[in-house]
């Protein structure tokens, strides 16, 4: 209720009204709701189904996480992080180092390509351009390809045709292909979120396109870009199918690009398949889940907290 008060005129004093006693016409009490549901039983059934589904989802998450933690944490002994792997003590140290190496190198290669491609798509190209449409289609196709198909391609091309053998390098390039669309999409979103006034202001001050992009736009979009890159790391850490026949599954420390080595996810697959180290496999699952959840959480944190409000 807004009252127009004319200048020079005293607003009419109204009798005191206890606002709290007024029942808003559009508010339902719990009883009202129950009565409405009694009249429309189908609505009530739907409501109950929705609640049930939410409950089931929550229960599933809690059950999986708690069960895994309960099975894994008691087995999470210091020996599992011993330097050497052997068939008695299935240490995951090598696997963790291999994972970090592979994920890191993947990002070193994939991040510039993905970010540059996104810069082209957002800052240079017109969306009606046929070339842009083809690139977009390619990115969508790439993001839909199942990881085993990446794996078989990596085995044919990197391992076979290029003759790299089962090696970190083959694994890295397979992962690059897999993470490229993710990095490009998140970067595109981040670039699009930078207001046009930033670009216009920069151009108006005489900056060239390149300077505008690197000095004005990229820093403003950095949080979104970094969060996308962290998500990509999470994808690599959790990946198995694409790496078995490219990065290889030998449990040793990959001493360089041309040596093969199992990542943590593959290490866990091998443990699960052998079936000899049930508890240790659970412990590895805990490490994997914690790693991925922390990585994804970090991505979200970076995306949200460092985001500047324009």
């Amino acid at each position, binding site marked *: 209720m807004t009252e127009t008060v004319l200048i020079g005129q005293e607003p009419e004093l109204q009798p005191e009204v206890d606002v709290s006693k007024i029942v808003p016409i559009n508010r339902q009490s719990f009883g009202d709701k129950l009565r409405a549901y009694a009249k429309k039983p189908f609505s009530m059934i739907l409501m109950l189904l929705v609640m049930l589904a939410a409950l089931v989802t929550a229960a599933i998450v809690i059950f999986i996480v708690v069960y895994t933690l309960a099975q894994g944490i008691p087995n999470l002994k210091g020996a599992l992080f011993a330097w050497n792997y052997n068939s008695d003590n299935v240490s995951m140290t090598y696997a963790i180092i291999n994972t970090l190496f592979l994920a890191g190198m993947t990002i070193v290669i994939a991040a510039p390509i993905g970010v540059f491609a996104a810069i082209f798509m957002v800052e240079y190209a017109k969306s009606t351009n046929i070339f842009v449409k083809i*690139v977009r289609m390619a990115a969508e196709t790439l993001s839909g390809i199942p990881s085993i198909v990446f794996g078989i391609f990596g085995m044919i091309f990197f391992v076979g045709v290029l003759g790299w053998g089962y090696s970190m390098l083959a694994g890295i390039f397979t992962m690059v292909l897999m993470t490229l669309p993710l990095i490009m999409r998140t970067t595109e979103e981040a670039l699009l979120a930078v207001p046009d006034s930033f670009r216009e202001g920069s151009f108006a001050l005489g900056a060239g396109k390149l300077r505008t992009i690197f000095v004005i736009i990229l820093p403003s979009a950095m949080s979104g870009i970094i969060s996308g890159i962290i998500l990509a790391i999470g994808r690599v850490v959790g990946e198995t199918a694409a790496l078995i026949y490219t990065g290889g599954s030998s449990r040793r420390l990959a001493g360089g690009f041309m040596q093969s080595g199992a990542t943590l996810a593959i290490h866990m697959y091998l443990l699960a398949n052998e079936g000899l180290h049930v508890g240790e496999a659970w412990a590895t699952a805990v490490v994997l889940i914690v790693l991925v959840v922390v990585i994804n959480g970090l991505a979200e944190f970076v995306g949200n907290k460092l985001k500047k409000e324009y």
Partner: protein
Amino acid sequence: MTEEVLQDGKEIKRQIKVDPKELIMKIVFIIAAVVFIAAVVTICVFIFVQAVPALKEIGLFNFLFSSEWDPDVEGTGGGSYGIATMIVGSIYITAGALIVGVPIGFLTAVFMARYCPRPLYKVMKPMTNILAGIPSIVYGYFGVRVIVPFIRDTFGGYGYSILSASLVLGIMILPTIISVSENAIRAVPKSYYEGALALGATKERAIFRTEVPAAKSGIVTSIILGLGRVIGETMAVVMLCGNQTEFPDSILDGVRTMTANIVLELGYAEGLHRGALIATAAVLFVFILIITLLVSLIRKKAK
């Protein structure tokens, strides 16, 4: 493109001196974009070029519709390569996972979008994110240790079955369905909901009869994305589905999916056997291409 080039040309004439860095970097950006096209083309070419000779030798019809999968491992010649049982296996498990995942995921999405109070949302959202982040190998192991014994004890059979795989994959696609559907429902203008309420509809009627139809394309997209994820899923499936190359009689029987076939035998396959596995990947690839096309068609229609 030509317009831009012309503009650039004019500018160069006007300013006489333009930083060559601009042009170089522009070319670098274009090259980065070209990498995407090159990647897809290379993947297609190498998979199909290796698949076609094998398909010719086996015969496309035989490959797709024969149920006999008996690879020639010793290299004695012969061997039969038919993936009909695996296509059926993939379809059964995909259907099963959708039957499990879609109702729960869709209704949870409705809950998240329209029922969930703010404090609860702050707990529910990270929980579904955790579900999305768990690696498939962990899902597989969880399935082997928990779901398989449960199915074996309650329903009989070996436990490694369509049912076990469907349950676990149904859970795996929950986060995809929830987040995409939730966004679709949230994107419906508030006036739809308010209008329905003003006409005397209950909250449920307003949501399910006005908002959900309006968000239909987004919800269908979420289901198709889930479908794509299930068809392509490998590690969790191979641990749970039993891997028999036979047609199943019931959902308690094991099957083998196309993905499982590849990952199981690629390690030691040679010659025609290897070609047959690559051809399996090609069939899988075609499935995924159809799905990607469907999604983009739906998006276009929605616009």
